[in-house]
């Protein structure tokens, strides 16, 4: 009895599965244009994701007040991915199901990469304000991907050039935190140094985030007689590395990336932070569009805009502008418009190249001087 039933069920299951594959999804036709915003909106990394939501909301409100895009109102659909790849897949599915015509996000490179598969198949353009992993644009797999932030190899390039030309040093220790972002940055730096003559990587190694003690690594840096450390990673480990080096009386210079360009770093590292170099996106906060955007943020939310706010603002502007120029929400039209039109944003006038990287955005070198980061003039 039981066996018979399960066999029947299996058959029914197979038939239904077949039916499922025959049915094709029908696109929803809506008056409103739906835009997705995805990223970490809760959890530890929420402070990186929330500003993007605010930025997108401000831009959308601006367009809606002026009559919308192509005469249609724009609606935001906000979804949280907590920066985890496996959650990001669900988030992407939700947004696709909700019928968005474009997505601002995701925030973390890993989550973006996981979600992109879904968006590519569904032909939805994605503009990330903060995913800096080079392969996202360079591996040629994601024709729908754009970003309003420069990729990590540009940071590494700037760091290496700075060490050679401005500091004039030749013995470099390259360290990283074994993570996606940190290791990627460090490997680019190592490869760029190896291409140059007269400068050597004397040590390349990773530290374990959260370990109780870094003196073993510091010993090796001291042993290698490195004149400068290039570090790829975030500020908690960076402040401990710098702190332990200064405790030992080492005067090795410390150059890092935007993961360290955070006021928490200066607070935690204290006096040891003084003189540390970090690359970070160019300061465009004096740009009139940026000033205006920040003012509207203060008026609406009552505080200063946070990380990647201007990048997300630019991304939303670029997307809505592209739809407006193309006079269509179709994938081919929008992506073509993104590549071919230039838009005025808080980051300056930008457009996108064939790979999806924004032209006209780049990095600057900063240094901690008297307890705050100062952009070094060119």
């Amino acid at each position, binding site marked *: 009895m039981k066996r018979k039933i399960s066999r029947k069920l299996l058959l029914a299951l197979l038939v239904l599965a077949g039916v499922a594959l025959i049915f094709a999804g029908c696109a929803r036709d809506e008056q409103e244009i739906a835009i997705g915003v995805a990223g970490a909106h809760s959890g530890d990394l929420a402070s990186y994701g929330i500003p993007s939501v605010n930025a997108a909301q401000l831009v959308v409100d601006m367009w809606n007040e002026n009559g919308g895009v192509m005469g249609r109102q724009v609606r935001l659909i906000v979804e949280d991915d907590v920066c985890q790849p496996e959650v990001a897949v669900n988030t992407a599915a939700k947004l696709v199901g909700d019928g968005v015509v474009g997505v601002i996000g995701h925030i973390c490179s890993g989550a973006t990469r996981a979600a992109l598969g879904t968006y590519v198949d569904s032909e939805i353009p994605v503009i990330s304000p903060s995913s800096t992993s080079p392969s996202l644009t360079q591996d040629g797999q994601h024709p729908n991907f754009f970003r309003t932030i420069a990729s990590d190899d540009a940071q590494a390039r700037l760091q290496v050039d700075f060490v050679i030309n401005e500091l004039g040093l030749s013995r470099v220790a390259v360290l990283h935190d*074994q993570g996606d972002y940190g290791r990627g940055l460090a490997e680019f730096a190592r490869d760029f140094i190896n291409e140059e003559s007269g400068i050597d990587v004397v040590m390349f190694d990773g530290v374990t985030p959260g370990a109780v003690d870094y003196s*073993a690594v510091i*010993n090796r840096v001291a042993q290698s007689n490195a004149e400068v450390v290039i570090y790829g990673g975030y500020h*908690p480990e960076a402040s401990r590395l710098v702190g332990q080096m200064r*405790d030992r009386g080492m005067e090795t210079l410390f150059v890092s990336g935007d993961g360290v360009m955070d006021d928490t770093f200066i607070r*935690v*590292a204290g006096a040891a932070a003084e003189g540390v170099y970090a690359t970070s996106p160019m300061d465009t906060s004096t740009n009139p569009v940026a000033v205006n955007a920040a003012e509207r943020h203060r008026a609406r939310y009552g505080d200063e805009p946070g990380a990647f706010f201007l990048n997300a603002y630019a991304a939303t502007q670029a997307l809505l502008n592209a739809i407006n120029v193309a006079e269509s929400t179709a994938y081919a039209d929008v992506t073509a418009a993104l590549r071919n039109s230039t838009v005025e944003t808080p980051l300056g006038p930008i457009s996108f190249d064939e790979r999806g990287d924004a032209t006209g955005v780049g990095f600057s070198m900063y240094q901690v001087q008297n307890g705050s980061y100062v952009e070094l003039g060119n």
Partner: protein
Amino acid sequence: MNYFTEVVLSGLTRGSIYALIALGYTMVYGIIELINFAHGEIYMIGAFTALILASVLTIFGFNTIAILFLASIIAIVYSAMYGYTMEKVAYKPIRNSQRLSALISAIGMSMFLQNYVRIAQTSDFLPFPRIIPRFPWLSALPISMSSAQFMIFASTAVVMVLLTFLIKFTKIGKSMRAASQDKVMAKLLGVNVNKVISVTFIIGSATAALGGILISSYTGQINFYIGFLAGIKAFVAAVLGGIGSIPGAVLGSFVLGLTESLGAGYISSDYEDVFAFIILAVILIVKPAGILGKGQIEKV
């Protein structure tokens, strides 16, 4: 000072850091055979409480020495209170259930305490003041050692000696040993087992808090997650040395610290944790009860 001595010294530093946490771990295990996953969280709460108190006292204008002592002592007392409460809430009611229930309860407690601190305070990293003053006579030594390192070494030694003394020679220590061997028999002989277990948690938590304060002032920063990572390593160290044994915990910690440090110093710090786990696996395969652990007696 040559490179090898430096590597060994940093291994010993690591070892004594692990030992400070592992001592409490191994003590609790010795009595009720519970992997107290939340031990690392007590360590974190100790450090956090000390930081909060130190900041408050600084704002109230106390002098440095007063801050150092008041903040540390209150934080240690508080952690002991947390340990006591934790045992009453999460472990006592299930003492007679299967072992796995207690382990899951401990994991739940660990998650709860982490997020409790994250929500009530912050998820950001906070600077931890370097509360240990500089000892000028340290520079006279032939090796370069910071005062924080010295304090960690000294505390590990003192705590180990005190605990061994406590367990070997005092009345409560004898009750502990009795309770760990056979709870029913101990009860019959007039040992208040509940009290013994409470005292064990109080002492274990107090050592964890002491560790939290010293280690945080060495690393200079804390957040809500430091307890979990340090706790796992300390647990590995305790098992390595033979869990339940006080000298074993210290020995295991030094073996672990030295392995990691030598591995990182001569091969690659990428694989530092891999070396730690490999030495653990190798030692347990050779000696299934750890270096100083006694083989389990089969009760049929």
